[in-house]
């Protein structure tokens, strides 16, 4: 018998005020047969990534979209695609959600989640992280090919220059900053309630959204899909012996070795990411998440990358014990990349929307004191 869903609750003697399941997981039961079929059907197998056919979706009736530009790190232009609910008007105050993709992937693959959230009355924005897709590369990824003659006499200089532009720098430190910039952008958007913003991230993006929540209490609700950051102590970052020579090459020449970035978007990435991404340790900062933030984990039972759902279940327990509303609902039978398609998508997107609607609320009448 497979555990269908598991709450992160019910630790004996716990005084945690929110130690119980917060949303119904009945939909998992209802779709059990379909999930089993997805798990065994050869055509529905997904190994090492999603496929372009998984990215398609139909825009829900009445939902509208708009492409926007916002800025991170003092001037790097990022891309977002906003999805507005049917009958959206700026005279009301709407909850909003930032939707960010997983490791080495593009926003086009997860627009369908944003579309679903908009169908449930949430403004949703799917983003490309810096140096990916429609987002620009930032100052960490633009190298001058001529001497930099600027001096401290001027804070900003604009000029023509030869540059080397780098793309697909897989960097979780960037991604945390990008999510926060997206939240800031949404806070300033007419019709959006700046105090009711959530974030959705999947896979590596799940690690990132947890780190964002651990950093920034503006986040009121989190959904972390197919990720499982087991609670852990903070540790110093060590560069693995096989990466030291590469790190040295990097600081002495400006560029180190590349490795296959793999997964859904098969670009090369810098080998350095293996070291740099240790600077974001979601499991080590769970204790920083504010009690005003609620967290839903959607792990997959047979996740080959997270080694199953145990890490997410432990993380939810850990948060509950500290007075943070959290729940883990396991997607039975599925492997990592199956969560993005077919019944896995239907169930995962519905539960995520349920969570956001419950903890961000619905549209509200505008108040004279509100807005930014």
């Amino acid at each position, binding site marked *: 018998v497979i555990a269908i869903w598991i709450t992160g609750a019910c630790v004996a003697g716990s005084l945690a005020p929110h130690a119980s399941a917060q949303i119904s997981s009945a939909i998992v039961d209802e779709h059990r047969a379909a999930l089993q079929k997805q798990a065994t059907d050869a055509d529905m197998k997904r190994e090492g990534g999603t496929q372009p056919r998984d990215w398609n979706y139909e825009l829900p009736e009445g939902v509208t979209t708009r492409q926007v*530009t916002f*800025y*991170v790190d*003092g*001037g790097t*232009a990022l891309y977002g695609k906003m999805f507005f609910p049917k009958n959206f008007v700026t005279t009301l105050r709407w909850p909003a959600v930032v939707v960010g993709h997983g490791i080495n992937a593009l926003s086009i693959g997860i627009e369908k989640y944003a579309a679903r959230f908009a169908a449930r009355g949430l403004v949703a924005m799917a983003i490309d992280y810096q140096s*990916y*897709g429609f987002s*620009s*590369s*930032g*100052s*960490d*990824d*633009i*190298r*001058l*090919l001529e001497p*930099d003659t*600027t001096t*401290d006499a*001027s*804070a*900003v*200089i*604009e*000029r*023509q*220059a*030869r*540059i080397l*532009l780098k*793309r*697909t720098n897989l960097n979780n430190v960037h991604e945390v900053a990008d999510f926060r910039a997206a939240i*800031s*952008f949404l*806070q*300033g958007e007419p019709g959006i309630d*700046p105090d009711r913003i959530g974030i959705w991230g999947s896979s590596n993006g799940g690690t990132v959204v947890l780190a964002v929540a651990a*950093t*920034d*209490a*503006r986040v009121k609700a989190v959904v972390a899909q197919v990720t499982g950051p087991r609670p852990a102590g903070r540790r*110093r*970052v060590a*560069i693995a012996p096989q990466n*030291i020579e590469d790190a*040295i090459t990097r*600081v*002495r020449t*400006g560029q180190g070795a*590349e490795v296959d970035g793999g997964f859904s978007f098969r*670009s090369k990435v810098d080998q350095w990411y293996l070291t740099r991404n240790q*600077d974001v340790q979601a499991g080590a900062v769970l*204790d*920083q*998440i*504010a009690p005003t*933030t609620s967290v839903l984990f959607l792990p997959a039972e047979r996740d080959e990358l997270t080694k199953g759902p145990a890490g997410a279940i432990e993380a939810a327990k850990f948060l509950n014990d500290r007075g943070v509303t959290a729940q883990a609902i396991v997607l039975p039978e599925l492997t990592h990349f199956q969560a993005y398609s077919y019944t896995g998508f239907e169930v995962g997107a519905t539960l995520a929307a349920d969570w956001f609607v419950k903890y961000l609320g619905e549209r509200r009448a505008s108040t004279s004191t509100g807005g*930014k």
Partner: protein
Amino acid sequence: MNRTRASGLGVIAALVAAVPTAALAQAGARPAGAASASGVTTREIRFYSEAVLCYGKLFLPAGFSSASKAPSVVLAPTPGETAATLDRYAEAIAARGILAMTIDYRGWGKSGGFIYLAEPLKWDDRLRFSQHTAKVRIRRKRMIPSAQVTDIRNAITYLQGEPGVDRDRIGVWGSDLAGGHAVTVAGTDARVKALVAQVPIIPGKDVPRRATTLTAEQQSALVRLARTPAAGTAAGASLNDEEAKLALAEYRPFWSVTQIPQTSAVLFIVAEKDAKVDNESHAIAAFRLLKGPTSVRTIPGAAHALSGSAADAAAAAAADWLQKYL
């Protein structure tokens, strides 16, 4: 105030007296060029911190060669100042056989600025790298602690690649807020074996380790930054101010103190008459939390901006500490 734990200050003073600087200059081949009285020679170098070419100056101990297995240290300037202010300290440390490297942060001094695209470009993610002639915006004098911490870590990597340097014996030195940077680096990067924080500013002691609750004013500032393309130099300068305010408000190096393991030795050097920093809630509070070798060295009568004999005493204390623990 004179609080010590692992080593008494008397011992440090005795060490200084017993080892005259001249004795440290090794007999034999002294490199050509401007060798100091202690035989220290210097070399200007460049290193990349992320995509930006940064300035560094190496202070090579007498007798240093690529066959040496010398300890080394990165010296980080007070934010807002440059590597040029650190010669005295680097010189004193190198006189003890430790290779010292002073640096300019990205966007300061002789280092390059942060580069942004000032016009849209076409790129292809599958190519990864492409060359362009494009209008760029180069930003300088940004005050972003996390970027400066990254610069220090990249400088450590540079030292690890320097022939003659022992990769496993590297320290960090910083003053003022860079003392906080040194604590941050030691708490997050396993390569740091010793650190010296001089008149350190280590914010965060009384701030619970929690996600930041931003004020309405801070949130409005973030909204402006996220929704306004930086344009023109006048706007750029005020952008720097707004950005710096937010970045500094979120910077909590004190949170890293408890992550420094017993294998890293930490010296705090404080000025007795420091009017800028309350030593009790910065250096001394951090000192109390450390489990490994640590000490607070007070420079009597000194103000926050160390100069003259006070600066010499601080340089000697740093050199003593690094010599002992590296």
